[in-house]
């Protein structure tokens, strides 16, 4: 009965360093297997007792059978602690929380466009791999992903070996903010690149990144003829309970933890811009 706010144990079984400030943690239940099932876009509360508890999007796809992964940027108390831990460390975990991306309804059969900036790829990573594992259920797939530098691109080895593999039938467009020596790819901010790529407005868009990037991506998409009803994003606010009761992530008459974190932009338009 207490499951919705009392955590269970998880074990960190692998840690991968992705960028100078992002690591990906593999979490399993004690004795192996996933702690719980989830859908792409849903989140979980991770905690280390005595340090704190925080909400993270689940980065791995539900199609991964044995574990869940979390790509986490080091930026506060809890994340600092997570970044210094070693394999076999136990943590506490509870979830899944929130509304997922509508992968099994609205997105079915659609031509998809993923747009991500920096660690904003983390929540979309789950959706992209879910789409990849059910490739026949979706139309064209394009992924625009940008970061500050080549070193800051999350999941680059996986992007190159899996998403860019012609068998995946996905077009990946990588970009970095400033030119650098070992990079012969595109150089531009994500919103500019989206405009340059001239996507036709028949796509369903999933976007995640820093608020300023989202703002300009939305502008770029509007210029290309996209409607707000075609664009989904996922939000982040401070949370404590995860079940719409502690009041922290309340915006307008919505709670990001339970009514989100996935929102369509037309839904967001009806809410105060307090995010």
């Amino acid at each position, binding site marked *: *009965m*207490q499951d*919705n*706010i*009392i*955590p*269970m*144990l998880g074990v960190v079984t692998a840690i991968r360093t992705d960028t100078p400030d992002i690591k990906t943690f593999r979490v399993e239940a004690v004795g192996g297997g996933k702690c719980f099932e989830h859908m792409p876009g849903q989140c979980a509360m991770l905690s280390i*007792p*005595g*340090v*704190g*508890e925080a909400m993270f999007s689940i980065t791995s796809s539900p199609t991964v059978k044995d574990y869940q992964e979390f790509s986490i940027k080091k*930026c*506060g108390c809890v*994340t600092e602690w997570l970044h210094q831990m*070693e394999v*076999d*460390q*136990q*943590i*506490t975990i509870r979830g899944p929380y929130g509304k997922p991306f509508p992968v099994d309804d609205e997105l079915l059969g659609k031509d998809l466009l993923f747009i991500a900036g920096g660690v904003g790829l983390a929540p979309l990573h789950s959706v992209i791999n879910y789409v990849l594992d059910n490739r026949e259920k979706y139309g064209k797939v394009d992924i625009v992903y940008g970061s500050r530098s080549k070193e800051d691109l999350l999941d680059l080895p996986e992007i190159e070996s899996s998403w860019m593999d012609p068998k995946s039938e996905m077009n990946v467009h990588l970009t970095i903010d400033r030119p650098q020596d070992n990079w012969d790819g595109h150089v531009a901010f994500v919103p500019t690149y989206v405009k340059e790529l001239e996507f036709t407005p028949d796509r369903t868009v999933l976007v995640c990144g820093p608020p300023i990037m989202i703002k300009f991506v939305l502008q770029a998409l509007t210029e290309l003829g996209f409607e707000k009803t075609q664009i989904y994003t996922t939000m*982040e*606010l*401070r949370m*404590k*309970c995860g*079940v*719409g*009761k*502690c*009041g*922290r*992530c*309340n*915006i*307008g*008459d919505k709670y990001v933890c339970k009514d989100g974190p996935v929102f369509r932009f037309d839904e967001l338009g*009806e809410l*105060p811009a*307090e*995010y």
Partner: protein
Amino acid sequence: MKKLSLNALNRFFGEIAEKQTLIAPIERAGQVDFGVWSESETVRLDVLKTVKSAKGAFFPQVEDMVRFHMQGKNIEINPSEVMNEDFVIFGVRACDARSFDLLDRVFLSDPVDPFYAARRAHGTVVTLACNEPEETCFCSNFGIDAAEPAGDVSAWIVGEELYLRANTEKGETLIKDLEDAAEDAAEETKKAIRAVTEQLPFASLNLEGFDGEHLMEKFNDPAWAELSRACLGCGTCTFVCPTCQCYDVRDFDSGNGIQRYRCWDSCMFSDFTLMAHGTNRPTQVERFRQRFMHKLVYFPSNNDGLYSCVGCGRCLSKCPQGLNIVKVIKALGGDK
């Protein structure tokens, strides 16, 4: 209807307290607040407003949730037990009784909060009509009748007698051994109370426009800047409020394990929404607006039009800057 002489009240309390915990308005250090009754305590049924509301009986200011023991890389998790003993809360006023309904909307909606649900299941609420409503009272605006309080048992003081009416099975069990009385014994008292509440200065506030339909209009009203200017962000309003239910979750390292507990929190505090990359409510204007928008617009929008205010008036007397929800309603409601 049952009755009990006020002289015999302490004996009745003693009988209840033999079997279960009794919570009542008790005077301690010059303040009256809900506390655990014992024979040596002074019960003050004449005081209309306890400093803090009665919500703590079901949503305590601090409540243990889970305890952890750390050993190397391993963690042991021991969830705290939910309330498993019956208790009675006596002397709850009509406004605070309504606040329980509002808290139910939050904590008993899916997914049900196990700690709150257990306290609700084990608690028996005895309410007391307000013989002398005060100038700061405005419960009637929210459809609350101070003369007819809800709860498992409703009670009225008439002269030297206390009349009690059971409204639920729990209530009947509590008062079944008391002396029978005429069903209409409190009618005159009720009339007298209503005559007073009708005349109160804030008896008819104009709440027009506080609904989901006008959400953005209310949010964008320029009046918020002026209304919130004096706010210190002290959170007093939140802590005395019967309907404020925001909470924080914190860990305390006791030296013998780590206790995770939840405690009352306030959206008026600057760190309420603070994240590693900043806060979405950077000034007191946004925080002040959030508190009142939630009570008057967001909550009703999600709860069949019910306002998250019961008109108890505690914020009117406790805010060190003289800010309160009545001023907000007057500035932004139908009379603006």
